[in-house]
C-alpha cells in the first residue's frame, strides 16, 4: 500500500469560449483540478455557470478553447467515460434492455458479456421486469434509472453525471441516491456529478467543487469527511454538516446575486 493516491483525472487551465452571433460567452475560465481514482466529486454552481460544458468537454463532445485534460487509462479495453445526460437521452426506439446495453453493443462486446452485464444492472436499478418495454411506457424516475444503468453497464474509466436526479420527486430521489451510492461503493468508479442540491452534494461527495458564473471558474472546494456508507437521515443529523451546508449556501447565494446584477 502506498499512501500516494492514484490520479485519475487531471484538468489544466481549461477555458471554453462560445461565440454566439459575435457575442462572446466565457463559459469556463482557467479550470484546474485533479481527481483521484475512485473519488466521488460533486460540482455545484448557479445555472449557466458552465457545469454541463465542463462535462461535455470531458465527455469528448465539445473541444476546449484552450488548456487540456487527461483521463488516466488502466490498460484494459474499457471506454474512457460514460455520461448521464441532463436530458436523460433514453433512446425512444430502443427497449429498456437495448438502452442499457447500448455502450456494450456499440463496442461489439461478446453477446454473453452484454447479456450478463445488462441483466446485472437492470437488476440493480430494479428494472428487470420492465426490460422489454419502450421508454414511452416508463415513468420519469424509471427513465432516469435506465440512463444510470446504461452508464454503469458500459463499465467506463470514469462516470460523468449531469443532474441525473433534478427532475425527480423527493422520495424517488432518495431511493436513487442510495442505489447510486451502493453501486458506486461496489464498483469503485470515479464519478463527477453535477447537482443543484446542496443536500445531495453532501450526501454523495468526497469533495465538492463550488463554481462561479460568467466566467465559470472553480472558486473553492469543500471536503466532506463523513464516514461511509452514508444515509440521508444520518447525514442530516450530523452537526458538522449544518456548518458545511451554510457555507455552501452562502457561496451560492452570493453567486446568484452576482449573476443577477450582471444581467
Amino acid at each position, binding site marked *: 500500500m502506498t499512501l500516494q493516491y492514484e490520479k485519475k483525472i487531471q484538468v489544466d487551465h481549461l477555458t471554453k469560449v462560445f461565440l454566439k452571433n459575435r457575442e462572446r460567452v466565457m463559459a469556463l475560465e482557467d479550470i484546474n483540478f485533479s481527481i483521484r481514482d475512485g473519488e466521488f466529486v460533486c460540482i455545484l454552481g448557479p445555472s449557466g455557470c458552465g457545469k454541463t460544458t465542463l462535462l461535455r468537454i470531458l465527455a469528448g*463532445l465539445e473541444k476546449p478553447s484552450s488548456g487540456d485534460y487527461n483521463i488516466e487509462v488502466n490498460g484494459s479495453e474499457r471506454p474512457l*467515460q*460514460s455520461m448521464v445526460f441532463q*436530458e436523460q437521452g433514453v*433512446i425512444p426506439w*430502443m427497449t429498456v434492455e437495448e438502452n442499457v446495453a447500448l*455502450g456494450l453493443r*456499440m463496442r461489439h462486446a461478446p453477446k454473453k458479456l452484454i447479456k450478463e452485464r445488462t441483466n446485472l444492472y437492470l437488476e440493480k436499478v430494479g428494472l428487470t421486469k420492465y426490460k422489454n418495454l419502450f421508454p*414511452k411506457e416508463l415513468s420519469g424516475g424509471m427513465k432516469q434509472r435506465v440512463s444510470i444503468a446504461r452508464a454503469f453497464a458500459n463499465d467506463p474509466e470514469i462516470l460523468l453525471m449531469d443532474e441525473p436526479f433534478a427532475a425527480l420527486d423527493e422520495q424517488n430521489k432518495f431511493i436513487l441516491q442510495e442505489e447510486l451510492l451502493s453501486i458506486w461503493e461496489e464498483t469503485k468508479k470515479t464519478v463527477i456529478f453535477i447537482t443543484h442540491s446542496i443536500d445531495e452534494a453532501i450526501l454523495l461527495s468526497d469533495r465538492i467543487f463550488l463554481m462561479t458564473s460568467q466566467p465559470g471558474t472553480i472558486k473553492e472546494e469543500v471536503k466532506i469527511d463523513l464516514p461511509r456508507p452514508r444515509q440521508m437521515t444520518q447525514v442530516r443529523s450530523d452537526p458538522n454538516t449544518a456548518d458545511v451546508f451554510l457555507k455552501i449556501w452562502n457561496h451560492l447565494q452570493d453567486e446568484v446575486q452576482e449573476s443577477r446584477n450582471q444581467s
Partner: protein
Amino acid sequence: MEELKKAVEVEQQDFKRKQRSKRIKQVLTISSPVFMLLIWEILSQTAIIDPRFFPPPTTIIETLISMSASGELFEHVKVSLTRILFGFLMGVIPAITLGLIMGMYSSIRHFFSPLIMALMPIPTLAMLPIILIIFGIGEFSKMVTIAASVFFPVVINTVAGVMNIDKVYSDVAKNYGANPKDFFMKIALPGAMPVMMEGIQMGQAIALLTIVAAEMIGANSGIGYVIWMNYKAFLISEMFVGLILISFFGYLFSLLLRGLQSKLIPWK
C-alpha cells in the same frame, strides 16, 4: 368493498359505451361507399343518369367476373402490379439511403438540396418522353417513371426525419462510441422512420397515379391500358372495371403500409 365494486362497475359501463361507439363508427365507415353504390345503382337502373355512361354497379361487377374468367384481366393486373412493385422499390431504396446520408452530413445535404428542389416540381409524366428516349419503350422505362415519382417525397421526408431527431440522441450515440455504420442503422434510420413512413405513404399514392397515367399514354398492357382501350372502344362497363381495380389496390396498399408502419415503429 362497496366502493370498489361501484368503481369497477362504472369502468365497465364506460368500456361498454366505448365499444358501442367504436362499432357505430365502423358501421359508418362502411356505410358511405355502400350508400353511394346503392344510389348509383338506382339512378342508373331508372335511367335518371345515362346508363351508357354510368352503367349500374351490378353490371360492372358482372363485367368484372366475365373479364376475369378469360384470364386476360389477370395478366393486365399482374403487369401493373409488377411495374408498381419494382418501380416503387427502385425509387424508395435510393431515396432512403440518400435521405439518411443527407440528413447526417450537412455538406452532402447542401450539395444535393438545390438539385432535388429544382427537379421535384417537374411532373414525372412530363419527363416520360425523356425517359422513353433514354430507356426505350420496355418495362424498365415504366419502372423508372414510377421510381422517379416516388423518389422525391421519400427523400425529402427522410431528410426531415433525420433532422428531426433530438440532438441529445446523437450525443448519446457519440458518447457511447457508435461508429458511422451503427449510427446510420441504430440512430438515423429508426429515428427518421416515423416521418419517413409518411413520405413512403405519399410515394405509394403517387406511384399509383403515375402508373395508370403512364399506361394510358404509352403502353399496351396494364390497368391504365385497360381503361383507355375500353374507353376508345366505348366499352364503358369494362372501363369502370379498370377504375374499380385501381381504387381497390390503392386502398389495399395504404392498408398494408399502415400495418407495416405499426410493425416498424412499435415505440411510438
